[in-house]
């Protein structure tokens, strides 16, 4: 096969298929086409894609959801979900052998031994019923003839290499018994135990907390250098790309739009799409505080405490009680946006839900505009609920799929006694406010994209003209370009309506962009609070410092165009 033909969509010629180095490629994908089934929204998952991977090189394939980056990885491994998704053309040359032509038996010999793979979610990628040790051992057993003792020695050695403390215990453990970071380390150990030439990593850090992510990225890089492995690293996160990539390939709708060295692509992207993506990445530089401390306090939280009792069910394995929020104090002034940042399990969502009384706190008080909400019964609270509204994380789960968009937006006011026609009319106005087509009003949520749904969710919250808006990770489920739009919308509305906002996020870049002040949470406690700029510039608490240090690509400043 010669050079691939020009890309069908005509947005610029196909990028060069080389990595600009003259070394012989370890892996060369040439003119790969992968067809999608008839019911899919486009014909091909991957169109006419060519890419090379050299030994001792990390190539990052970056793109938004649906760009075909994962399909590429699976096509190389021969793991496409046949028959619906299948290769229709091209070559995958590995050591000169076209893997697409290889027999199933040959592919099995290559997989694991020569090309290994790690996945986004190690919890589901590991068989829940088998011990970690057994699963790693299986990898060795099916490819090599080794004595049990040798196998074991090799596994233990590798577990130390991936820095798993107490490897004996890890070997005996089941996947659910160890932490996410440990699981991913074990996955890496399993993938690398046969010293494969290539490691394909499909979003391996996306499910991890930022600090763990940093460690895993470092580990992958270290091992890659040590074993001279070629790594095909798939990610959606430009921060991660900046952290790890030697070369970067940008994909969009199954087409490779740009490829080049990390420095080229990150700092001087050529393709328009790459530029728009990078432009959407929030800078880590904090915004200036917009408002003064003179504004009245809208929200005051005192001594908020919540402990989850567990062990109620037969099979729950959790400890007796889990303190989720420990005596938290907060105050939020009108027009301010407070960012609540922390890793998963830090209690930030629980805190928000306690404030809004979706969860009954064990102790503590919430005063909203002078009214002590915590003293009210659930029933008494109901008329006051309109003053605090919430925007949720999951654009798919937060809208009742059985209701039309106007119904969704109007149901709040209707509940609070607004006449139905008036509420519906107002709902249509709100659609314009959140920049949705008014024609969308009578459609159902499943007809919209994630970003559009988040807008609907925002409109629903705004329909009640709340004093306080609680936004719980409102953009973390969105692609980076959509994320930027929604953040922009939120900022605009906040300014226009003088909204007070409690903004929960795990992403320090987002927090930097949105929040006037931030509060850093860890294990149910706020360890540090202050104006965003101050905290970023001079973090007081070691944990805050750790968090900031872990932000991927923190040294990379996304260029502005």
């Amino acid at each position, binding site marked *: 096969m010669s050079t691939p033909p020009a890309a069908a969509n005509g947005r610029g010629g196909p990028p060069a298929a080389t990595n600009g180095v003259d070394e012989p490629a370890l892996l060369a994908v040439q003119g790969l086409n992968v067809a999608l089934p008839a019911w899919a929204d486009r014909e091909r998952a991957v169109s006419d894609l060519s890419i090379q991977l050299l030994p001792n090189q990390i190539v990052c394939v970056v793109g938004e959801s649906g760009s075909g980056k994962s399909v590429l990885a699976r096509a190389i491994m021969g*793991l496409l979900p046949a028959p619906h998704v299948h290769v229709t053309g091209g070559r995958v040359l590995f050591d000169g052998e076209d893997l697409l032509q290889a027999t199933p038996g040959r592919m*099995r010999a290559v997989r694991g031994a020569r090309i*290994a793979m790690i996945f986004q979610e190690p919890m589901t990628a590991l068989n829940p019923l088998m011990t970690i040790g057994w699963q790693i051992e299986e*990898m060795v057993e099916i490819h090599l003839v080794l004595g049990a003792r040798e196998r074991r020695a090799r596994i233990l050695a590798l577990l130390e290499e991936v820095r798993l403390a107490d490897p004996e215990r890890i070997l005996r453990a089941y996947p659910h018994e160890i932490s996410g970071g440990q699981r991913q380390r074990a996955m890496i150990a399993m993938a690398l135990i046969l010293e494969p030439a290539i490691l394909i990593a499909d979003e391996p850090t996306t499910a991890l907390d930022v600090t763990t992510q940093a460690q895993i990225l470092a580990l992958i890089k270290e091992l890659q250098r040590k074993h001279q492995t070629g790594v095909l690293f798939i990610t959606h996160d430009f921060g991660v790309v900046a952290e790890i990539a030697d070369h970067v390939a940008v994909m969009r709708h199954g087409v490779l739009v740009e490829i080049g060295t990390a420095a080229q692509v990150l700092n001087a992207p050529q393709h328009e799409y790459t530029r728009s993506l990078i432009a959407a990445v929030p800078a880590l530089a904090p915004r200036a505080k917009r408002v003064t401390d003179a504004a009245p306090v809208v929200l005051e939280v005192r001594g908020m405490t919540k402990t989850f009792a567990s062990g109620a069910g037969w099979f729950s394995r959790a400890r007796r009680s889990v303190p989720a929020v420990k005596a938290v104090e907060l105050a939020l002034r009108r027009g301010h946006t407070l960012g609540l940042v922390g890793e998963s399990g830090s209690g930030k969502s629980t805190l928000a839900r306690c404030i809004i009384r979706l969860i009954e706190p064990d102790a503590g008080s919430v005063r909203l505009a002078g009214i002590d909400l915590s003293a009210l019964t659930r029933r008494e609270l109901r008329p006051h609920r309109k003053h605090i509204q919430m925007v949720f994380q999951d654009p798919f789960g937060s809208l009742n799929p059985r209701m039309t968009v106007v119904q969704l937006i109007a149901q709040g006011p209707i509940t609070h006694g607004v006449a139905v026609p008036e509420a519906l009319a107002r709902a249509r106005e709100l659609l314009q406010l959140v920049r949705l087509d008014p024609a969308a009003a009578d459609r159902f949520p499943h007809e919209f994209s994630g970003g559009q749904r988040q807008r609907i969710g925002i409109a629903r919250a705004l329909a009640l003209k709340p004093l306080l808006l609680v936004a719980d990770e409102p953009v973390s489920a969105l692609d980076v370009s959509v994320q930027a739009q929604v953040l922009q919308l939120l900022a605009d509305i906040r300014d226009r309506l003088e909204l007070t906002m409690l903004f929960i996020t795990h992403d320090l870049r987002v927090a930097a962009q949105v929040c006037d002040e931030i509060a850093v949470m860890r294990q149910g406690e706020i360890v540090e609070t202050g104006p965003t700029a101050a905290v970023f510039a001079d973090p007081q608490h070691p944990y805050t410092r750790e968090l900031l240090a872990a932000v991927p690509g923190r040294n990379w400043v996304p260029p502005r165009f």
Partner: protein
Amino acid sequence: MALGPKTAVYIVRRLAQAVPVVIGIVVLNFLLLQLAPGDAATVLAGEAGGAPPEYVAQLRERFGLDRPTHVQLLLYLKNVLSLDLGYSFRNSMPVSTLILGRLGPTLLLMGATLLASVLCGVLLGLLAATAVNTWRDRVISVAAVIAYATPLFWIGLMLILLFSIKLEWLPTTGMEDVVAFNEGWDRVLDIARHLVLPTVTLSLFYMALYTRMMRAAMLDQRGMDYVVTARSKGLSERLITYRHVLRNAVLPVVTMAGVQVGSLLGGSVVVESVFAWPGLGQLAFQSLFARDFNLLLGIFFLSACLVVLVNLAVDLVYLALDPRINVD
């Protein structure tokens, strides 16, 4: 997972928690049966073809039926708590002796049914799932759908018609050939032959259910991420199926098997009546119509205990199969 002290504590706790449920069953049934018109004394008099009223009154006194309901209930509960199930006046025997006599055949039939339905169901489900959309899968799936819709008693009759009456391959009914009075292995073999048709009848429905569950679970599990991992490790499809998927797919079947036990005893009333199997179901049926409530309550009590124990056993099996589940 291992049978450590934690598991022992768990077992004890489970059993302790089952006590109120079982007592609740006894109390509710006791009260329910009080609503039944007529009593054991009438039945005995009726069976005798008539008896003078003094005789009936005497019977009532003897059975304690002349006392107020709450006194009868309290007495009964007191006895049950000391594991005394009372006396069946109609059968002139202690209830416990009667029940114990039927327990063996009942457990045999239940056990055989459970085993047959789970094993065959899992196997058929496996065969279907490993050949999705081929003729093998279709035949198995269609058979399962049909078996799932078949009335038990009817299929029992049809099996008798075919295998006993027409083909004369298997005995019609009963648990063993009573003319022969076989000993040793001959007897075992004989009972086994008698066991075939009732077991097939009783297990058909659940076999179909398990086949379908197993097939669905296998297909479900095949879509899981860990299967992709296994493929990426270079495992063959066969190894993936047997090493990884099978065990995961069996879990829902195990859960269902626990539920099956509860309904097995009820369903066996019909099958026992068709096949003249000397089990508890028939005994219960008879005791209801004889208003032999001590006996009926005893059977309810025992079957409740049985279900509790089997459910516990199923959970322990589950515990052994699924490390995610913990006794804490």
